[in-house]
């Protein structure tokens, strides 16, 4: 008697499993599909993919994971990978994939016209889709005008001791930023900067949104985040009390660190044509400044110079054309990832 519902539950388990087994093969293949490995948080919830499916009838199947995990997966699967498109939030990872032959070059007039040279692989293995700038954020109530840090290196100043929020070393954002420092300044100087941050006893918070909220609430006064997290919070609350400052804008400086959300077609893509269609769409219609576009949905900057920029972004950050951006080919970040990791580990950076 007592266990009647237990049996019922077990029966349900059986039914569910059987329908699972029965349905899985039948839902395969009849429609046009493209399989995407995506490192973007939105994963399969990406509204742009829904829009794409509506416009073209091609179903987008997404598998989400961290950039590193997906790369690892591509490596392990080799030629047998089910993925057609590799979509990450980090140019370095794309570059590694290209170097290892996991991506194939694509000569598409549409794409070459839409994506500036600096934002794509020189051999066209992959293409940027949206731009994200990792820069300094501060609380204007807690930081005097004169004290506002202007460079990544400024954050090593002891006055920020206990007032700094950073993302842990496990996250690709941190690794890529460190790699960029190594590429620009050399191993020694990059290590000195990272060591300076660590010495300031930062709080490590594994979410850019939380870093911004913590700055707003007074938990720390300065931090490093990607620009669009601030835009997202400002969209919810126009009075959100955190201000951005573009890092490294001085004459001697190299410019603010830029990373890309980008994608490339896998070497053995089964749905090659659909993957090309998707990629071309992403750098044209997919550049829309509302949620149907990749940059618009996430408050990122488009790669296509002809695409509209969200008014909110311009309002907060000014015109992107006025910003000095690190000219280092994004390609190079990948080469320095290993060194960056060693520096992060050896300086005792949190994770």
């Amino acid at each position, binding site marked *: 008697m007592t266990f009647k519902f*237990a049996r019922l539950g077990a029966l349900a*388990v059986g039914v569910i499993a059987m329908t699972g087994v029965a*349905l899985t093969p039948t839902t395969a293949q009849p429609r046009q599909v493209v399989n995407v490995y995506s490192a973007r948080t939105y994963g*399969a*919830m990406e509204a742009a993919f829904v829009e794409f499916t509506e416009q073209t009838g091609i179903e987008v199947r997404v598998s989400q994971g961290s950039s590193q995990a997906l790369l690892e997966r591509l490596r*392990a699967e080799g030629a047998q990978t089910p993925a057609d498109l590799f979509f990450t939030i980090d140019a370095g990872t794309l570059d590694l994939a290209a170097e290892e032959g996991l991506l194939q070059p694509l000569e598409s007039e549409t794409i070459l016209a839409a994506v500036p040279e600096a934002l794509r692989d020189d051999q066209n293995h992959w293409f940027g889709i949206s731009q994200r700038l990792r820069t300094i954020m501060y609380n204007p109530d807690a930081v005097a005008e004169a004290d506002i840090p202007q460079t990544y290196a400024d954050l090593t100043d002891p006055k920020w001791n206990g007032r700094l929020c950073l993302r842990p070393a496990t996250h690709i954002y941190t690794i890529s930023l460190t790699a960029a420092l190594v590429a620009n300044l050399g191993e020694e100087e990059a290590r000195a900067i990272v060591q300076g941050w660590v010495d300031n006893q930062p709080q490590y918070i594994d979410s850019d*949104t939380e870093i911004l909220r913590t700055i707003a609430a007074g938990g720390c006064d300065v931090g490093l985040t990607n620009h669009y997290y601030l835009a997202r919070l400002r969209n919810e609350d126009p009075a959100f009390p955190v201000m951005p400052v573009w890092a490294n804008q001085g004459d001697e400086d190299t410019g603010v660190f830029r990373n890309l959300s980008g994608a490339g077609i896998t070497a053995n893509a089964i749905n090659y044509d659909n993957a090309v269609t998707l990629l071309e769409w992403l750098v044209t219609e997919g550049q829309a400044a509302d949620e149907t576009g990749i940059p618009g949905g996430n408050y990122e900057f488009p790669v296509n110079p002809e695409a509209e920029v969200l008014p909110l972004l311009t309002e907060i950050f000014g015109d992107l054309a006025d910003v000095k951006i690190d000219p280092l080919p994004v390609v190079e970040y990948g080469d320095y990832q290993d060194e960056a990791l060693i520096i992060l580990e050896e300086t005792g950076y949190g994770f």
Partner: protein
Amino acid sequence: MSKPNKLLDRDRLSLIRLPINTQLILPLLVACLVAIPVGFLAFQLLIPRWEIWQQLWETTLPRMLGNTLFLLVVVGIGTFTIGTGLAWLVTAYRFPARGLFDRALLLPLAIPSFVMGFVFMATFDFTGPVQTFLRDLFGRGFRINIRTGWGAAIVLISVLYPYVYMLARAAFREQAASTFEAARVMGYSRVRALFKLILPLARPSLIAGVTLALMETITDFATVRFFSFPTLSEGVVRLWEGRMDRDAAIEVATLLLFLALGLILLERSLRGQARYYQAGGKGRRPERVQLRGVSAWAAFVICLLVLGFAFVLPAGVLSVWTYREIVIGSEIGTWETVYGQYIFNSFSFAGSAAILTVLLAIGVAAGVRGHGTRFARGLARFATLGYALPGSVIAVAVLLVIAPIDHLLIDLGVTSSLILTGSMIGLLYAYVVRFMSVAYNSVEASLDKVRPNMEQAARTMGAGSTRILWRVQIPLVANGIAVAMILVFVDVMKELPATILLRPFGMDTLAVWTYMLAAESFWQAAALPAMTILVVGLLPVLILMRVGEQSPE
């Protein structure tokens, strides 16, 4: 049976003995299934790669090791104190709402630790409502840093104490009144009798409960990651998934494997030799002492606080977020496009794993019972070893075994794609290894109810073997099998590390989805899948409550 006879009658005997040996084929197979990946991993430790160890030791290993040990100690003490204390409170005393708390205190079992982790984080972190309120009260300088080992330990204790509570409560209930009274007439006060007699007597149960909690603690990787408190389990996932450093991940996994085995051995030795069963058992239960005044309300408030923090808070917060997500609008993207898909994925993983695991468990249990030798029981122990191993370790071990097979099959031209690692097979394998003991214990307990003389009795009543099977044996076993299926089903739904490392292409589950969103602080969006897991997870807790009630009042 003497040896010469055996030799003489070899041919005849082999015919008789054959069915006995086939009984052991399945247990042997399952034991191998479990043993091979674990053995493979253990073997890695025999050929340590010193340069990797050295690098790990110089960088992150000491911290991971220290943090893991910290959590084991703090969670061990915390779950023991809270679980045992609450169990004693509800068995020995009467106070307002005692009957309700008696069962409701099991509810936090339904909440996966990583769900509690992000709810706790959202509520109590610097930017959360509690600290914001306190800052309004005490000024902006006020802060409590919860992103520490203590924060992670609080979360783990609050979801894991029910393991100790459940077993301690059962142990206290079993103890006959006369045991307690005997101590009283020998000059022991209530409190001294508790510490000198009741607790030592319940020791095997208490240790088993704490061990279960510690097993869950070392397997957790998501909670500690929310708290930026790297442990060995977190390290395996981080090195494998984040750093792409498989070799280092394998080395850390082997270390974790030996830590887990160490825990089992520790438990065995702490249990001691004494067999703790009570003579009689028909004895009365001790009278519950009526608490009055302050102590009654103190007992009430303690129970309320624990239950409120460990269940009402997360369930309430998740409900509000879920409501907002569905009714007011999605926090990010469009949950409608994926919710159905992820539920379907979760359910088909959990359902297939439940059926497969329970079927294998029935085979093993029946074989072991039929054979009945020490060897057979040893096999069963081996086949159920996986419960002690962190999910990440099992995932790594399984991959170590099946990935080479996969590539071999492709090289030989048998298959054209990764049929093992690229499909559910690898993941199911890991689930079977991990949850075999859950299924086995339940199935075995129900098989115990089928006694040979029942069959004989039924035969004397003129029942044929088919009728006996359907009317006697299956009904007796059905409940145990049903419970086993539900337990495995829910455990798989909640499982995270192995699922993250082994899920096939595009097959994200509710747990993975929750984790991904929560890691990026999309708490409202993460609430919907988390709530779904919680609701399904309540099912076995309700069963547990009813089982508790069946014990004689």
